[in-house]
């Protein structure tokens, strides 16, 4: 009996120690009640620029004492940066392929969550002077702006052209380093048209005219998000990931032209 009591006591001590030192068990549960603070850097796909900036402001207002900064670039460029050791706490990609690179590299601490979707759209100069109606019509423009082949929006656009059986002369294609520069070639530059995301077309407002691609010919971008192993503020990183799928986050994303994640 005495021996049994001693065993109980030992186990209790082990459990207590474990609760304090092993993250992700009792310790993590305790942290949930602590107030969020500090700073995180969210490396996010360029297409998320406007939506995430707004969500960052809202999040900081709801959680005083926190700062969310963004590193916005092509998802592929962000992966290269993160693999190269760039400090980041959360990665939000515009495709699965770039997220997979980090998952396989062990740089992600949780299963990625899909928080948004996007569809491709054609944008032209205001009032569509070339009367572009379809992907096939893009073969006749002088300069078409597409994302570079490595960038998610470039891959999606290639898939859309392949699917529609449309061939574009490469000598007419200017390649943007991310979706925003691809869009800028039409808004400020002289490109006749571009293939970008519906959300980009929405944020461009009246500087472009959007031409819808029918759903059966469209390519749908999925946006996974995950906290990163390099994070120094895992709680805040988790909170940001949760915020993107929360009703408030979803409302903002959809107001910027994003689609809800599948199954919602």
């Amino acid at each position, binding site marked *: 009996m005495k021996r049994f009591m001693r065993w109980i006591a030992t186990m209790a001590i082990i459990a207590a120690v474990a609760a304090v030192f092993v993250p992700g068990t009792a310790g993590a549960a305790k942290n949930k009640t602590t107030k969020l603070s500090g700073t995180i850097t969210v490396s996010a796909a360029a297409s998320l620029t406007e939506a995430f900036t707004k969500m960052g402001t809202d999040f900081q207002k709801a959680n005083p004492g926190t700062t969310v900064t963004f590193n916005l670039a092509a998802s*592929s*460029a962000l992966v*290269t940066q993160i693999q190269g050791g760039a400090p980041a706490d959360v990665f939000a990609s515009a495709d699965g392929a770039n997220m997979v690179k980090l998952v396989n590299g062990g740089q992600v601490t949780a299963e990625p969550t899909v928080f948004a979707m996007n569809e491709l759209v054609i944008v032209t*100069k205001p009032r569509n002077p070339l009367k572009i109606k379809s992907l096939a019509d893009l073969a006749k423009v*002088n*300069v078409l*702006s597409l994302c*570079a*082949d*490595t960038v998610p929006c470039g891959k999606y656009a290639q898939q859309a052209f392949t699917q529609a059986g449309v061939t574009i002369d*490469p*000598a*007419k*294609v*200017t*390649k*943007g*380093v991310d979706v925003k*520069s691809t869009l800028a*070639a039409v808004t*400020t*530059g*002289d*490109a006749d048209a571009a293939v970008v995301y519906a959300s980009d077309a929405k944020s461009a407002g009246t500087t472009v005219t959007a031409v819808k691609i029918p759903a059966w010919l469209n390519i749908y971008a999925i946006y996974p998000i995950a906290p990163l192993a390099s994070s120094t503020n895992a709680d805040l990183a988790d909170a940001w990931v949760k915020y993107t799928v929360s009703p408030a986050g979803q409302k903002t994303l959809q107001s910027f032209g994003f689609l809800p994640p599948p199954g919602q």
Partner: protein
Amino acid sequence: MLLALVAVVFFTLPLLGLLGEVEWGSLWDNLTSQQAKDAIRLSVECSLWSTAISVCFGVPLAYVLARVPFPGKALVRALVVLPMVLPPVVGGVALLYAFGRTNGLVGGWIYDTFDWQFTFSKSGVVLAETFVAMPFLVITVEAGLRTMDRRYEDAAATLGASRLTVFRRVTVPLIAPSLFAGAALAWARALGEFGATITFAGNIQGRTQTTPLAVYLYLESQPQVAIALSLLLLAVSITVLVLLRDRWFGNVRSA
């Protein structure tokens, strides 16, 4: 002394880093890949055009700045030097609002009148490169004109040579070292142009995708092509420096 050493290490490490990444065995294959060949051909063509244009317009400008007194000269010189300190991408945006077809001050008129479009064309690359490169030529030639001995020109003039003959037969040979140095610097700057080119002329393989643009674009998809092209640009830069060392510093000593 130690701080100086830190500075030297700071300049040396990136070079070593680049050299360490080069796959020497496949270097030739990488440099002769279609993307690399397109980029190199375009870079050589456009940078030579831009150097030629810089000489055509830059030498007269340097002459005026060095010799002809006129009000507002300081302002003109500041305008000429501005592209040297201006972030090139800002230069590209500014060019877009001047020579762009849809949003440019004169671009639309040029397009309507001459059916000529700078953006997304080789001429746009040349324009962007000239914008950032010409100041180097103007400044170097102007310095050459200021430091040369004008008595030779006066002597030629008293012997009955016309102003054009004096310029051609006396002035130009005397400033030849600065002219060469200025042209080499302008060429190297044009060859390395990135920001203004991608902003103004776009990024079309074989048409406006110069070597620096190719380096940036292929760094993710084909890093070895990007590294091989970087090495090529590095080699060109070093060659220019070595050539300038003789001509330029030689000129400084004799002057």
